[in-house]
């Protein structure tokens, strides 16, 4: 199962990324666990300097923007 992590302090933008990620799972038909990482230590340890960030299976795929559900679905399919 894939692991999708949304990095961000819980701001409105981060919640939108999470919502888009959920939509993307449905589009791609992929099972995944979605985690919301709010601890700054953990965010910083990923080398992410602008939130919201998105990490799929440990790989940072998006930083400082709100990727669309379509974008996320294509990353999930990779």
């Amino acid at each position, binding site marked *: 199962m894939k692991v999708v992590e949304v990095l961000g302090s819980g701001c409105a933008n981060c919640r939108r990324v999470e919502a888009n990620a959920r939509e993307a799972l449905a589009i791609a038909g992929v099972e995944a666990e979605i985690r919301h990482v709010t601890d700054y230590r953990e965010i910083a340890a990923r080398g*992410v300097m*602008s939130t919201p960030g998105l990490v799929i299976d440990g790989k940072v795929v998006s930083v*400082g923007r709100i990727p669309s559900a379509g974008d996320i679905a294509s990353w999930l399919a990779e």
Partner: protein
Amino acid sequence: MTTLTVRRVHVPFRVVAPVVVVAWLAAWFANQPLANWAAYDLLGFERGSHLGDAIAFFFLDVPKVLLLLLGIMTVVSFLRSYFPPERMRAALAGRGTVPATLGAAAFGVVTPFCSCSAVPLFIGFVEAGIPLGVTFAFLISSPMVNEVALVLLWGLFGPGIAILYMAAGLTVAVVGGLVLGRLPLEKWIEPWVLAVRAGGGATSLDIRLSVEQRMRDAWTSTKDLVRRVLLYVIIGIGIGALIHGFVPTELVAQIGGRENPFAVPIVVAIAIPLYSNAAGTIPIVEALLGKGMPLGTTLAFMMAIVAISLPEFVILRRVMQLRLIAVFGGVVVAGILAVGFLFNALGI
């Protein structure tokens, strides 16, 4: 009815862009006559009356500010997407204090930044070994000399005041950064921040975005911004309209005037708890300037509103002790006061 359920047709960007530009220009030039027509002819207020003038000001400014925000912010956000913080960090790391401080202040103008990202950005800078003063130069310049402020100042007052504001803001950021860099402040950073080591691997610089993605992002973030500031804008313009129509010029000149040495500290003290954004502030500033408030006092008021944000201080508390935030805030306030006094003394 069926047309509503038809799937959205994808119109190519080559068609959309010129149509949008033409519509924007038409709205921009029709705004003034329409505002006057609505206030004086449609609603029948008397030309030159207090209420009529206030209402015409409101009808003129609301669409004007919205048009400026929607149009120019989309372009600016698109351009800014090419200057992510990681790029700035790479450019600043390992430079001398002065060039790095100047660079950080300049990046503050172009790098996309929101206060919710202040903490990861701060950690990223500390981790790259960038001196604290340089980081603070960015944290001062980024909210103060932000694109919304510049776009609105330019659109409502012309390039002169916008450039003056930018120069003053950058100066406060650079001098503030250099002063803070001289002070032994590292001990007031929370210890865990100094211990963070980012794992290697991909950073945002490795993520490729297409031009279309960047444009889509720009439009989305502009829509968000407008939705977020709309209420502030309407309140700000409402207050501006009241000042414009009802506050006597003599009163503004008396309180905010050059002869009153307390004018600058008073407006700064009023502005600190007023955390608004530039979009809501500038209409008030516009009305005050129109009533003869001197430029120094006005600039200090605006800078204090946008640069000193209590929510951002609360967020920064996660990574630094209160004492450090107090020193940081104190230096920014001192810089803003200096700008106000200087411009007033020069009589610009």
